[in-house]
């Protein structure tokens, strides 16, 4: 569906849409909760949109492990 280099910009776009964080601020080292101030419901919205965009499944127990943006990018890369 998309190669590795497209995942981060695509994910950043979703985060901006859902939470209003500028896409440029969504970098691999950022923590969704601590750095980007994203609450649990917004995190679910991001996951739902990411599933749709990248054709992956992100089960709830996996979602809980995605602490940083890089965690999410890696998960999507492994599972798409």
């Amino acid at each position, binding site marked *: 569906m998309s190669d590795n280099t497209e995942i981060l910009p695509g994910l950043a776009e979703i985060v901006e849409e859902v939470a*209003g964080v500028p896409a440029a601020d969504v970098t691999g080292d950022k923590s969704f909760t601590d750095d980007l101030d994203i609450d649990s419901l917004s995190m679910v*919205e991001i996951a739902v949109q990411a*599933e749709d965009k990248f054709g992956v499944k992100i089960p709830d127990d996996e979602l809980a492990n995605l602490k940083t943006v890089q965690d999410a990018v890696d998960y999507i890369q492994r599972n798409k």
Partner: protein
Amino acid sequence: MTAKHSANSADQVVVTGIGATTPLGGTAPETWQGLLEGRNGVGSNDAPWVDTFDLPVRIKAGLKVEPTEVLSRVEARRLDRCQQVALVAAREAWADAGEPEVDPVRLGAVVGTGIGGAMTLLDQDDLLETQGLSKVAVLTIPMLMPNGPAAAVGLWAKARAGVHAPVSACASGAEALAWAWRMIRDGDMDIAIAGGAEACIAPITVAGFAQMRAMSTRNDDPATASRPFDLGRDGFILGEGAGTMILERRDHAEARGAKIYGVLAGAGMSNDAHHITAPEPEGEGTTRAIERALRSADLSPTDIGHVNAHATSTPVGDIAESNTVLRALGEHPVVTANKSMTGHLLGASGAVEGIATLLAVRDGIVPGTKNLNDLDPKVGVDVATTNREVSDLRAALNNSFGFGGHNVVLAFTKN
């Protein structure tokens, strides 16, 4: 004035802030100005679904200012339209009150709605049916729930004393003010952000009200379609909007030097238990609500110089209300019907008209009723057709009635 809560007692409930977004304007002052200018808020409904379903009603009273112009994009996408307007009006009122410093556990939010998040329910159901589960919004439930507007306002303001959402159809906004008044008097909170919100101009609501024959079909002349008390009236015009008051215990307001618009002196509630939608023709229930409002405010019928009528422009309702006002108060109050300009804001109407009543008492002027060219001879009250100055206007009532037999009457007095 012998009652427990006399003229300037510390636990009187005063109004220290107002906010509104309506078909007449995006703020409370603009709405009030619109009422005084006789501005019209009713226009044609150009949505494509009017043609799609060949709806007999092709007019509406839409918002003057879109809430998405006021809220941030992210805020707006997380809120149903009825929550959006509630938040817009609440923020205006809070700023108007001077953003009071208050312990969150002494701050409440009481916001009613008649229909709630119907737009979200419909939109998300469409998505589920046409595109499947993955397209259904994560926030569907918090957006459609009827306490959604109250919860959105309460969360924004960090109102921890309590967040409540009275639901009584077109009396919801007034009932919210009544409950907030009561909770402040009972000592549950020092300040309440209170009012009503509605935004449900959608195919199914228009179709449903139209099927009841409750709405005006004066499609060729929207500006004159809402004509309370006029012989030519043929139903209400569906509107949208929100109204909010900051209600505050007098000693709290005075201690911080707040500007005081007036006093919410009392509230009376009752039910007809007569018919699911029709008013009880003798007006026994509505009369009781007026009497309770007077008693709670320590007022007598002769004190009331003005009545802001519910008067939706339906053939039966307007007459029943006129009869009630005559019976409970007499011929002297100057009556007006704001819906002639705003259309019917359903669960927001009591709050928006409450603000108009408050300002009428403050300024000693009653906005006229538009489109009243041919007074129905069965109307016995004194309806103002142009702006009327009322000398020494000390007290006024605001009536709100809702499907389900709900009657809510608010009493406002001059500070």
